[in-house]
């Protein structure tokens, strides 16, 4: 009997709670009219950023495509005249992307970054396949400073052997001097 009373009480409480909700203001944000300002770290549309010198950061190292759990990133790396490695083509299939952000985490040059912009809907699914020109943006994204080729130690137009940050002059292999 006691448990019956308790059950009835519990039921009544439940009904009362939902009933009270009737008079609360809905928490829904009406999306297309109201655009919520998303945090900068929201994971949505992916971009390729430039380094502070205004050159492409992506060196097409394939780490993002390796780490991508849905295999939506593909690319081909190539070498520029000045010795920079770059992506001759770079493709992200946003129809497949799950915006997990692993590519951003894997990127050693801060090139690939996720932005809060998420309205990438298209009627034709092929238009969700973004090429490099669609992905490139003209800024540094979240990482303003990093410039991979300044520290990498590979010869590019920026610096030759021994001219990068924290490098000694090249060893003269033909001298006997210590």
């Amino acid at each position, binding site marked *: 009997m006691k448990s019956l009373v308790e059950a009835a009480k519990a039921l009544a409480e439940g*009904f009362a709670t*939902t009933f009270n*909700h009737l008079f609360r203001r*809905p928490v829904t944000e009406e999306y297309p009219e109201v655009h919520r300002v998303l945090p900068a770290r929201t994971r949505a549309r992916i971009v390729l950023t430039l380094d502070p010198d205004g050159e492409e950061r992506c060196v097409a190292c394939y780490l993002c495509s390796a780490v991508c759990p849905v295999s939506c990133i593909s690319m081909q790396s190539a070498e520029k005249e000045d010795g920079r490695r770059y992506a001759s083509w770079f493709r992200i299939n946003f129809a497949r992307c799950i915006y997990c952000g692993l590519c951003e985490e894997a990127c050693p040059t801060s090139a690939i970054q996720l932005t809060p912009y998420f309205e990438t809907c298209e009627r034709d699914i092929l238009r969700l396949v973004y090429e490099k020109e669609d992905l490139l943006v003209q800024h540094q994204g979240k990482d303003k400073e990093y410039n991979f080729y300044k520290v990498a130690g590979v010869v590019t137009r920026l610096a030759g052997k021994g001219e990068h940050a924290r490098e000694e002059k090249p060893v003269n292999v033909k001298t006997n001097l210590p």
Partner: protein
Amino acid sequence: MIMWFAGLILLIVKLAVVLGFLLFLAAYLVWVERKFLARLQIRYGPNRAGRYGLLQPIADTVKMLTKEDTIPDGADKGLFCLAPAVVAMTAMLMFAVVPFGPELSVFGRKVPLVITDLNIGLLFVFALSSLGVYGVALGGWASNSKYSLLGGIRGAAQMISYELALGLSLVPIVMLARSFSVVDIVQAQERYPFILVQPVAFVIFMISAMAESKRIPFDLPEAENELVAGFHTEYSGIRFGLFFLGEYVHMQVLGALVAVLFLGGWRGPFLPPPVWLFIKIILVVLFMIWTRGTLPRLRYDQLMTLGWKMLIPLALLNIVVTGAVVLF
């Protein structure tokens, strides 16, 4: 003969109005349910199709009519097509015995505001309600899908179990009204609605009715997070729509039955009788939606325990007690 045709035309008009209203109400019940449920959950609910989403039912109808109707491989085509029609038609037929007002005088002849005043009205309701089980069970079986099959079996077992409690809970009402005719039962409530004298029967009937209409917390046949969509997993387009329509008409009919059997039917002050009935139906239905917004789904064994171990014995005892009290 002229009178006969005039009567026929009048009858058809009356029936069409009633059926139209029934369907319109069913369609808007969907809107009401979504809206009400949304507010229970601090949301807005549909608000895109028309003002306050009022055109939502129309949009849904158009969508269902134009969607592709797929039949899965290996399905029993005949039964697959028949099942939704069975569900929808039985639900709509059930409304035939519900009176929605006193007799009306037209051309000097009395036109009763009920479609058919069968003297076995309640049994007719039970019979159709049992027939409706076929729709669910066959739909589940014919789909050639495991989810559908499970949903169908569950639905059948649940509906026949609660059918018993439903039937037994109404015995006291019949005893009080001394008739199976629903019209007579309404008449019998001239002095007081039966809910006052039969609260236990009301509770049993309410619970059973919700279980009969497969609504949360008794929606095990379609439990979406375990059975995808249960017996109608494989249905699309208008066939799915008919299942849907059936469910909402069923809800409405059960609401009407509650109103008629326990709440005095169309009786009420100031307003015309059909409006009173309408208000009562809506109140019952809103209560059902409120329940949906409040209670979680039962487990299947809990469902069966509730039906067999609580409601049936309670209903039986209620009969005995009522009999004794009435005789006394």
